[in-house]
């Protein structure tokens, strides 16, 4: 039995969209000069992904690199690969001012699936979904807490929040996805 558990143990609910806690995911906060050659190499080495453009997420094989702010990325890898990715990044960025922090366990991650998945989020986030570009990661709030989400499939969104409010976020998603409350 693994000692490591996600905040909600992978709970899920069915409504007009299916919402689920997606379990543990390796996540790393990476801060530095995103335009530097070293940084690009470091991201490539850790994820196999190219440097994301502002507000974009580049997804690779089980790994991804997401633009969080002009000097910050969120690196996504499998949970068990997080420490190794941290080491890879640190090594690649040696000699350059940067910060690498493992935040895998500071986060909770959710999926919202179904043709009307966007309607679950449009009740919670002040975001214009028509404006959401291909491959865009949107940092915003979900009701009263910070969140970031992106389209992770044709009919799927992935949403990240802080771990401590995972129960609250799941409550929001479950309520918003309840059958009969489709907006359109």
């Amino acid at each position, binding site marked *: 039995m693994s*000692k*490591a*558990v*996600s*905040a909600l143990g992978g709970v899920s609910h069915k409504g007009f969209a299916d919402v689920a806690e997606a379990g*543990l995911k390796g996540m790393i*906060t990476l*801060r*530095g000069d995103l335009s530097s050659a070293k940084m690009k190499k470091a991201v490539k080495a850790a994820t196999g992904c190219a440097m994301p453009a502002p507000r974009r997420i580049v997804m690779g094989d089980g790994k991804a690199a997401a633009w969080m702010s002009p*000097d910050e990325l969120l690196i996504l890898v499998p*949970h068990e690969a997080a420490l190794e990715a941290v080491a890879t990044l640190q090594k690649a960025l040696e000699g350059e*001012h*940067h*910060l690498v*922090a*493992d*935040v*895998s*366990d*500071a*986060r909770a991650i959710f999926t919202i699936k179904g043709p009307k998945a966007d309607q679950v989020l*449009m*009740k*919670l*986030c*002040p*975001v*214009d979904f*028509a*404006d959401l570009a291909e491959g865009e990661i949107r940092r915003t709030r979900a*009701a*009263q*807490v910070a969140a970031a989400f992106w389209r992770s499939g044709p009919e799927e969104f992935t949403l990240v929040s*802080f*771990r*401590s*409010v*995972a*129960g*609250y976020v799941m*409550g*929001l998603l479950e*309520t*918003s996805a*309840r*059958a*009969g*409350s489709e*907006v*359109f």
Partner: protein
Amino acid sequence: MSTRLSKGGRLIDRTKPLGFSFNGRKMKGFQGDTLASALLGQDQMLVGRSFKYHRPRGVVASGAEEPNGLVGLGTGGRFEPNQRLTTTELFDGASTTSQNHWPSLEFDVGVVNNSFARFLPGGFYYKTFMYPRAAWKHVFEPVIRRSAGLGAAPTARDEDRYEYAYAFADVVIVGGGIAGLTAALSAGRKGQRVMLIEQTAHWGGRAPVDGVEIDGKPAEDWIRNAVEALGKMENVTLRLRTMASGLYDHGYLLAYERIADHTPGDGRPRHRLWRIRAGHVMTATGAIERPLSFAGNDIPGVMLASAVRDYVVNWAVSPGDRTVIVTNNDDAYRTALALLEAGLIVPAVIDARPEVKGALPDAVRARGVRVLTGHGVAKVKGGKRVTGVTTCVQAGQGAELETIPCDAVAMSGGWSPVVHLWSHCGGKLTWDEAQGMFRPDPTRPATGADGAAMVTAIGAANGMLRAADAVADAHLAAGSEGDLPKAISAEEAPMLPIWIMPQGAGPELRAKMWLDYQNDVKVSDVQLAAREGYESVEHTKRYTTLGMATDQGKLSNINGLAVLSDALSQAIPQTGTTTFRPPYTPISMGAIAGEARGEIFQPLRKTPMHGWHETHGAHWEPVGQWRRPYCFLRTGEGIHDAVNREIRTARNAVGLLDASTLGKIIVKGPDAGRFLDMLYTNMMSTLPVGKCRYGLMCNENGFLSDDGVVARLNDDTWLCHTTTGGAERIHGWMEDWLQCEWWDWKVYTANVTEEYAQVAVAGPNARKLLEKLGGMDVSKEAFPAMEWREGTLGGFRARIYRISFSGELSYEVAVPASEGRAFWEALLAAGEEFGVSPYGTEAMHIMRAEKGFIMIGDETDGTVIPQDLNLQWAISKKKADYLGKRAQERSYMASPDRWKLVGLETLDGGVIPDGAYAVADGVNANGQRNTQGRVTSTYFSPTLGKGIAMGLVRHGPERMGEVIDFPVDNGRIVKARIVDPVFYDKDGEKQNV
């Protein structure tokens, strides 16, 4: 008597009868009815009582402007008072009760107010309830509160759910009448993202009832085609039952969708509050007909002319067999025609205009109806329903000419555009003399983020009362894309602005002319206010309560201000209007709250061990949004006992505190040391790698803002612990200085608070416990106090800080949050032989107080500087600058008279109440006792077996041993001795083992 007609009714479906009840009486209606049409269809003319005089009230209108028809709707968890009959769709099983009467609607003892009406004039409350003062609280207010107020508050928990929806559009068109539909078609064809919302359950507005033809077809056909065409446009969203409640800055529009009001209990959310960001808003909100002011215009059966024909045409309800029309304009003749068409009798049209010609009056005359020009109503006869109308000459004083028996009166005083949304965000109005109305002034609109107009009024809402004008206006405003619909309606002669009937009515008549039906404000009240010196319309509104009822004066405002203008002998635009404020009509509290109720009322932050705590007797304490165990209750144990037990365990064996909530911020970079030296009052740049140091942070005002232990992780990385409530705030504070002041410094920060589960393992057996888990050398020699180590502890990746907030031998162990629960359980299992048990925040608080450690939020309150707490040792004298340093140099901060931290020991061993003040001799300028100190923390110490406290006392540290007085409840005085704040283990022998 009002009845259901045997045929017609464009909105009802006679094949779907619905049952409902009114005051317990079973009634019937049809699918498509409103509660108002269903009640009128069953001859329920009397539906409520007025606010002040408890006069009988009947339905006046057919829409959102209705002032009288308010009922309690539903039962139990679905009961809601003040539901408007005219805008509530009938559903099967609806239970309605009338309001504001006792003991019954038919017989109300409160109506006695009516006889005393002349003693209850405008400003009555202000004038009467002034003296004696005490009577207000004990006599007047309770009586008024019992007799006033509409409806009863629900007592059961709301069974429904509510939600928000965020939406964005280039254009939001408010109002689905022919103007709104025309605008939507044009904007939609242009490819704009359009949202068209309509407050009722039907598209088309008034046009079908008013006999409008568009593009050669009856309006109804054109509307059907328009809605169909719009429905096919992917860029257009159509929404019925959605009322635009308010327009705010930068095109922020709130709309209130009533999803399931007409299908209660079907599992859908009841209401949805749309939070729309509109590039532009077009208000196609139509116009509202005004009543006329004549004596007895409030008797049930007197209705707006437009409402009368709405009931006949839309719902096949006749308000009466014989309906007299009273008007100052041509539009009301449409009502006469509608009634005649339905086979009803119109005994006469009383028209205030001296001369009446034109297509509509001629058509009415042609049907043999008597048209009395230049006439008015002297009075309406009847009590709980109309029995007749007495005519007079409009130009005269009301000498009665003739009594016409009738059972309904349809009145029309002209129309007022619905300008609420236009005005909400600053759009200005202009007075249209010819039409006798305020309409939007297109040169002074509300402006948006770009400084350009963000609202356009179109159609009747823009003063375009004729169908052809309204449609053309809307088409043009929306960009004229596609063909202009050609609307045809009958020509109309100008209306005559008259405000009371007859012109020269004396006091007796004016005291029977109602302006505000719900609040019982009459023409005489407004005139009295003017005589008493009220010139501002806003003041008059509050003095008389005109327009302050739940309908917010939709019917009464214009008439009221016209009467006021007349009384002040000034023009109407000079008087101006009162302010239009959202919401347009009341919206539910549930919609405002949205999803935020029950479990998700607000975010509740949980540590990785929360689940364990929950199942092990945690008595919760909210700390910010966190829930932390205050103590862990065992079966049969009280809170106080549990806390004392937990302290004894930590002091004598070993205790575990879930300290995961403490803030943890990584600060890294070549300039990180320099940065932390600015942030903390002491030196952090000199902290050796591997060591920890306690630090204080102040704001620029010099006041203590947070504290915590800082660990240096490597050459350019520090980890700063903050208080539980301080993590986000301090992280934000760091980023603020780094981004906005010292942006050339090379420093990065990251808030990693939630990455770790952190456990304080405290007590004499702490080392034994960690040794048993194994994997790291935690001996005194290898791991001294105020240092940290990384390694694997009992198989867990751990970072251990040897720091103590309890005064005991203590290790704070941080492990990945995902393993926090497993680690906690491992500690408990391994610690069993050492007598381990968890302790909560209260035990933590008491133990730190026993040690004289300060707590942010207890010893500090935003006015306390570190020097007040004798923390000079934590303030660097070498540093040229740190945040707060300049402020602490101010003369008042350096004053020796500041209250300073001391310990307090009661003489009787009891506990001083929290927050108690110590008194000094004399009184201050306000005659209050002078004070010389206050209690900041106070507890019963189980370790010492007595009450201990910390407090701030003037010259405190110089007054050791002195006894000071703390007056507490009922004049009791607690005497306490000033002592050293470290009560326990002064030399720190217990933690340094």
